[in-house]
């Protein structure tokens, strides 16, 4: 049973719902964050090994500069590294989007995206 995957996908769908249907820029940014978190959860759970340990060589396994028995027990380090990268990217997006939302509020006096459409007229 791949419950982890399903929950991650539900989070993504929830974020998408927030992004598409909420009428508030800040809530939309939150939705974006939730969606990205779902993706991160999905990536991390994909690297799980049945009964695995963290991808750090424990002190007990350090023998003569070689990590014995470690490789067959640890979880996949690559998705974790990807998620580390992706988290920082997400922080940057959220920070910039919120700054722009502050400016939108400054110019329009509202955060409702349906009223922020003067350019189209």
């Amino acid at each position, binding site marked *: 049973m791949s419950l982890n995957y399903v929950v991650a996908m539900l989070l*993504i769908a929830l974020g998408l719902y927030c*992004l598409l249907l909420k009428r508030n*820029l800040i809530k*939309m*940014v939150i939705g*974006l964050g939730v*969606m*990205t978190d779902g*993706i991160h959860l*999905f*990536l991390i759970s*994909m690297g799980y090994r049945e009964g695995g340990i963290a991808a750090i060589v424990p002190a007990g396994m350090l023998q003569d500069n070689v990590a014995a028995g470690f490789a067959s027990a640890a979880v996949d380090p*690559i*998705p974790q590294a*990807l998620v580390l*990268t*992706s988290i920082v*990217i997400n922080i*940057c*997006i959220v920070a*910039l*989007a919120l700054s*722009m*939302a502050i*400016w*939108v509020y400054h*110019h*329009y006096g509202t955060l409702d*995206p349906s009223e*922020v*459409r*003067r*350019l*189209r007229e």
Partner: protein
Amino acid sequence: MIEIPPIIAIVLPLFGAFLTPIIATISRRYDAERKVCGWFTVAITIAMLLTVASMGARIWGGEVIVYRLGGWSPPWGIVLAVDGLNLLIALIVAGVSSLVAIYSLVYMRRDTRIDLYCALLLLVTAGAMGITLTGDLFNLYVFFEIMSISSYALVAFRRKWDSVEAGIKYMIIGSLGTSLILLGIALLYGMVGSLTIADLAQKLGQIAPSDVVVPLALLVTGFGIKIAMIPLHAWAPDAYQAAPSSISALLAGATTTAGLYAMIRVVYMMFGAFGVGTIFAIFGLVTMVLGALMALTQRDLKRLLAYSSISQMGYILLGVGFGTALGFQGSLFHLLNNAIFKALLFMCAGAILYRVGTTNLDELGGLGKNMPITAGLFAIGALAISGVPPLNGFASKWTIYIAGIEAGKAVFSLIAIIMSVLTLAYFLKAINSIFLGQRPKRLQNVEEAPLTMLFPMMLLAVLCIVLGVLPSLGIDLVAPAQGAIMNQSGYIHAVLGGI
């Protein structure tokens, strides 16, 4: 053999961007911040162009330059791989960005914090260059984000209400697109357990196509948002209209090109999904028709150019969608031409904005007497984009029409020809209401644009004429790229097996 040119081409603008704040802080003391930062950007971009061009001889000789970062061999580390397709796109990106940098020297004269503008400009370039030269899927995502985030910031650069509105719209839609790309990459990693494009290409061939439909759709949607394919185009007109004109030129010339490159690379060279072509052709057709129809009704020059940009992207998608050698040739040639004349047109719009202060077609008129050179350059660009014979747009559009007929989709070609006439119509309307007709009183004293701005425009116009008179030159330029698309196994072999 040391294969350093690709990494130099990426690190140069990155290094430049990191250095810009320091240089600005030093030069601020001598009150020369503007000049120093501007010329620094120009120098960096031109150096980048030369670096890319230095790879030319080897790539066109049929070689694939592979650079392994940190010396790790491909499936485990990150690899940069440059074949004909990469080189063509890299040349376009570097060329457009260096011309935009020259143009910005004068155009951004009235804005504050020019050091941040220069840093962000270099970052867009670095992002586009990173996308273009990388051979690793996740790395492509990272550089896609660099390019996207810096272009969101640049769109909002003037902090007026329109820039901020366009910026946040672009930001929300664009971030949704990049999230979808990340999800697609995550699914692919889960299925295949690899991230190098060549390795993925090799392994995806052994998987049932029905299993990889969802990641393919996610990736195409993500890249489609960046190139403003029509159901996903909502950000484009606003962003092109509200951004500084130099940035509009960069968006049309560099970031869209890089997005389309990513699409071609992923769909055709990674998934090998030539069957998706028909869907592309249909999307291209819709994009082309709706873009042209919407452009007809616009009253603002930059918005009109934005819709025409969407429409031209439709032509390129149409050519890509045919999936034949001639189709790729035509659409890559049109990609090159589109970058040239679209940058030229946006720069002309910027020149008008710089001198007059508005691009609203109703308020303009009779500027041909005041700005004869700009008028001439705009006319060249407009005729080229409409596909009038002695100019470059004709050659590439003609190739796409022929490719459509050869692929048995003559209807598509017919519609494309009609849209070409429509393009001519709305550009004639624009020329008529800007440069001809009655001149309002308050436009009496408008001067010609400064020479620093005219220089890149003239260069682009000359390119328009040269590529139009000698289309074989352009075909020679894109032939290696088209050969690279058809030669999927050669790429895989060069990256995984080679050197």
